[in-house]
């Protein structure tokens, strides 16, 4: 923005130095995850400060992915505690996908009712939906936990998925903002052709909304992938344990004296990889959505 750039060149240069430094601070921990995960635990102890992997090896990834035998794992300074990475990965993928599918569809339907249909009490009901944004998750977590226990759903996929499956206030809000902007003529034309609302919604409105739907799906998926608190409460069991919970358990199982840092960082990096991949593919969309939803 040259028009707002007041001041001599050296000031701009200083600005660039500071901004570059902040970007480096942002990126360094990602590099460090990679560096430690490619290191050998014993070499790490002797060489904590080198920028390159200490005693380069893929051993940590082999351990985490279950490709190394127990003896090999122990020899490399692994704790021997099994982390069933593939299982937890599958659980994370499954629950996040289910949550995203349900949340995006049902929230869009609700948003359609709030944005495109005319009915008495609409704005009041929408306001009630929005108040849920203010409720801290722990506030509803206690009764929801009791509900899952009473339904005998603890340690099932259903328990991990259900509270996020039907809606989130944010998703409804996000889609409503978009649907409000669609021209009425599109619907009127379809109406004249005799199409009912379900048909208009599924055949016209949803296909038109491909861009915001993709963005919402991305945000929903990432949020579900990163969720820790709720699955910690209802999904501790091995069978349904998701990656975030598994990482927490892995961390508390590592001995205090000599933690398996390489293994821990390899698992951590692998757990973050899907989000990083989504980010590389759709980064601009995510950035734009934050400018859009954060302010309006």
């Amino acid at each position, binding site marked *: 923005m040259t028009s707002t750039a007041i001041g001599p060149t050296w000031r701009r240069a200083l600005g660039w130095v500071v901004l570059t430094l902040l970007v480096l601070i942002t990126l360094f921990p990602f590099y460090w995850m990679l560096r430690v995960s490619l290191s050998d635990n014993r070499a790490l102890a002797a060489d904590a400060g080198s920028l390159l992997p200490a005693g380069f090896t893929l051993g940590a990834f082999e351990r985490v992915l279950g490709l190394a035998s127990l003896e090999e794992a122990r020899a490399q300074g692994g704790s021997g505690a099994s982390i069933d990475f593939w299982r937890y990965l599958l659980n994370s993928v499954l629950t996040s996908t289910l949550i995203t599918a349900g949340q995006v569809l049902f929230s869009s339907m609700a948003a359609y009712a709030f944005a495109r*249909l005319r009915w008495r009490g609409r704005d009041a009901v929408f306001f009630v939906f929005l108040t849920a944004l203010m409720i*801290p998750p722990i506030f509803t977590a206690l009764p929801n936990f009791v509900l899952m226990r009473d339904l005998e759903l603890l340690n099932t996929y259903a328990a991990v998925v259900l509270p996020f499956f039907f809606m989130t206030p944010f998703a409804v809000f996000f889609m409503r903002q978009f649907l409000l902007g669609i021209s009425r003529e599109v619907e009127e034309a379809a109406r004249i052709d005799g199409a009912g609302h379900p048909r208009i919604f599924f055949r016209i409105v949803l296909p038109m909304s491909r861009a915001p739907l993709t963005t919402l799906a991305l945000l929903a998926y990432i949020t579900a992938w990163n969720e820790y608190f709720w699955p910690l409460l209802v999904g501790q069991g091995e069978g349904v344990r998701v990656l975030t919970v598994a990482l927490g358990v892995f961390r508390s199982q590592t001995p205090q004296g000599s933690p398996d840092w390489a293994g821990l960082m390899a698992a951590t990096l692998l757990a*973050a990889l899907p989000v*990083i991949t989504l980010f590389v593919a759709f980064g601009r969309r995510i950035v734009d959505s934050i400018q859009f939803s954060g302010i309006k």
Partner: protein
Amino acid sequence: MTAAHPARRGDLRVALLFLLPAGFGFVLFYAWPALQTFYLSFTDYSLLAAPNWVGAQNYRAAFGDARFGNALLVTVEYVVINIGVQTAVALLIAVLMHRLTKSSLVRGLLLLPYLIANVVVALVWYNMLDAQLGIVNAVLSWVGVDPVAFFGETSTAIPTIALVNVWRHMGYTALLLFAGLQAIPKSVYEAAAIDGASEWRVFRSVTLPLLRPVLAMVLVLTVIGSFQIFDTVAVTTKGGPVDATRVIYFYIYEKAFQQFDFGYAAALSVVLFVILAGLAVAQLRLLRAGSSDLD
């Protein structure tokens, strides 16, 4: 609305149909549990027997609970450090981006930590800040500073966790503020340039006042989020050393899911909710979020 379609009595039926799944989820997992928490807060409930009405006893107990007082204090310390540093750094980033670049690559890179799970972020920094093997202590030793057990000492644990989460959120906050900066008309800056105002003067007298409505909203959102710090504590310090990082959220979690004192935990949740609601209202009033100085 009905005037446009005098023949129809609105779309109530079809609206109900569209609202059915989301409404079901809203009632079952948001509205009804929220009411239940209010009810449970007046009971003694250990999950084994039915809740037993005890009146305001849980609230009286909360006022006399020194560890709850400590949890509040620790949380406030966390929020002050976290929000203070985060807002300052985010403002700096936003202003720098506004002046220097519109690059979406820079914006994207700065946003990346916000998309990574709290658990992952906590573990990476747990490694980097390790007392023996952490890179941060290695760097400190090069400049002659003794190793610091960042997570392991009562005096450093909360600032450490607060700064770790500054790292995760600063880019996100900066993007929100950046969007606000872009809404400020260029003519204002041009006028300031003609008057020969200094950089700092422009920031204080032009940027900050005009950014205030956006800044207010951002502060309300980030403060509410900051009060709910849990994941980082649960993964790294688990409330310790001693009670140094036993923040409200973690304390409630322990009461409910480790001691199964659901009634008391519900009462503490209500207190937390009231604090958050009060803070939001107070912030919006103080910062007059609704009005811009531009009007």
